[in-house]
């Protein structure tokens, strides 16, 4: 087990090192940092001084080591636009994104599993066919367009939900959250549903497929033969067995939700890290871009590492296969 974890840890660190190389070199070699970082109105002498001050006269590998050293101290430079530490700006935005992603995750489970279960138990009923048709639509609908249409219907025409921002927030343990105030909840509802749509479709399909497989199993037949009530068979014997794969996949989708929140945050002007990066790209705010890329890589590598370790705990075959390979 510890061998497995150590191997995975080494692999993950290698990925982070590789990504830092790619990000650093693509930003510094493809784009010319002199043009970006130094005031173009400087004369040659001032320019040379500025280049020296920024360490741009050093060989590129020394610059990279410098970058790594700073990155370890949490220093990715200052945002050109906000004039604050890039890392700090991003960290400030993380709770908003996580709140949105987790709400969407919970929504997709609460809506997806009952619908999928129903569709799996009664595959031929017209309601099930509607549910499955809806799930195809959920896969095909462009998230951002649905978001715009939701704003159109609920904010512009009906005027019942606010269209932008987080609303009133409450601070818990130093983190600002929206879901504890009525105003905050109203602001959270549309973005969360929008972000959850794709995942709801996914959960419906997974649950339906799982249900159809499980109801054919011997233990379900046996439970029915024992004379257990339908309710008990479905909620204990069927549901319990389909939950494991569904929850695993949903857990894996958390990363995906965080990534996709970029879109939802842009549509609903939700002040998360996704909105920040899109603004930074448009304004060519390089320190923010670099910091965001490094943080997101770190985040995903960590998520993948945790998932891998959890998998190997739950399913020893994964671990053994890896040692053999």
């Amino acid at each position, binding site marked *: 087990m510890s061998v497995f974890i150590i191997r995975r840890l080494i692999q993950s660190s290698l990925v982070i090192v590789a990504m830092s190389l790619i990000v650093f070199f693509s930003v510094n070699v493809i784009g010319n940092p002199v043009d970006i970082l130094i005031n173009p109105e400087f004369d040659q002498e001032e320019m040379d001084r500025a280049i020296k001050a920024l360490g741009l006269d050093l060989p590129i590998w020394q610059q990279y080591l410098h970058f790594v050293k700073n990155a370890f101290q949490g220093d990715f430079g200052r945002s050109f636009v906000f004039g604050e530490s890039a890392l700090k700006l991003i960290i400030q935005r993380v709770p908003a994104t996580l709140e949105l992603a987790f709400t969407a995750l919970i929504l997709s489970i609460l809506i997806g599993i009952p619908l999928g279960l129903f569709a799996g138990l009664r595959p031929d009923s017209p309601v099930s066919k509607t549910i499955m048709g809806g799930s195809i639509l959920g896969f095909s609908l462009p998230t951002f367009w649905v978001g715009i249409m939701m704003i159109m219907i609920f904010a512009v025409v009906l005027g019942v939900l606010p269209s932008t921002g987080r609303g009133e927030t409450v601070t818990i343990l130093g983190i600002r959250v929206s879901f504890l105030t009525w105003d905050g909840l109203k602001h959270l509802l549309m973005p969360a549903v929008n972000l959850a749509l794709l995942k709801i479709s996914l959960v419906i399909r997974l649950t339906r497929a799982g249900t159809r497989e499980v109801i054919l199993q011997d233990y379900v037949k046996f439970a029915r033969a024992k004379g257990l009530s339908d309710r008990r068979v479905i909620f204990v014997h069927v549901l319990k067995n389909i939950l494991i794969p569904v929850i695993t996949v949903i857990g894996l989708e958390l990363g995906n939700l965080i990534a996709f929140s*970029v879109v939802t945050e842009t549509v609903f002007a939700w002040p998360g890290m996704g909105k920040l990066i899109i603004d930074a790209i448009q304004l060519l705010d390089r320190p923010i871009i670099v910091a965001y890329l490094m943080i997101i890589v770190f985040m995903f590598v960590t998520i993948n590492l945790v998932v891998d370790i959890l998998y190997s705990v739950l399913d020893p075959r994964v671990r053994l296969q890896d040692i053999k390979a």
Partner: protein
Amino acid sequence: MTEMPETEIQTNFAAAKAPAVETSLRRFISDFTENRIAVCALMVLLVVVLIAVFAPLISPQNPYNLAEIDIMDGRLPPGSASMSGMTFWLGTDDQGRDMLSAIFYGLRISLGVGAMSGFIALCLGTCIGLAAAYFGGRVDTVIMRLVDLQLSFPAILIALMLLAILGRGVDKIVIALITVQWAYYARTVRGSALVERGKEYIEAAHGLALGKVRIVFRHLMPNVLPPLIVVGTVQVAHAILLEATLSFLGIGVPITKPSLGLLIFTGFEYMMSGKYWISFFPGIALLITIVSINLVGDQLRDVLNPRLQR
């Protein structure tokens, strides 16, 4: 039971005479047409593709020819008439462009980018996947590690990272979409090529001392095509959707080449004042395209899946 009925001999004879390709193609067509929804979807898709190809010929106006548009016609609701008497069936945008024409031209860019990136990714992914399966060993390990690593990141994130570094532009978004997609093709091809590699016809080809390149491309590749076609249709839909999303975020195609996603973005700011049509109709066009591709893909998967072969 010693004599076969004459009719059966005849049908056997006919089956033996007909070229193999044609019968399997015929069976494929008859299997595919079993599902009426898929046939409708295919026809819709054909219409969409034809519109995209012939957009300059069928559009009521050229929305990017400044001489043809009039800013006085800006933001007219659907069905209103222009200063020169032309009817805007789907309304106009802020510049006074006919939305119908803008959508036709937008489809051209959306489909073009999607199909081109899909095709290049398919070629690249197929070659890499075949190499992994055929050579095995260390080549296989390295390639598959890379594929696994890439697939552990969401596609939108990889595209976002690339475009953050490269900047916006049609060529850049094509590069981003290829980077995102090749891994899916490589994985699919490798999976089915590994199965095919163990079969006797490959052994026979080796026995005939055919060259490696010939074996891989003439013998192995045709047999891994069916799953590739299925993945290909789904991926093209994904690519179109991803391009639209990125263009909507303002990091995709440039303003001079508006795809459907960029048209929706343009309309977004007028949404709040109730001018829904600038965003609404391009979205519908996008939706029709994606849904029809997905439905065709679903049916292709059912027809081409050997496990479901009747």
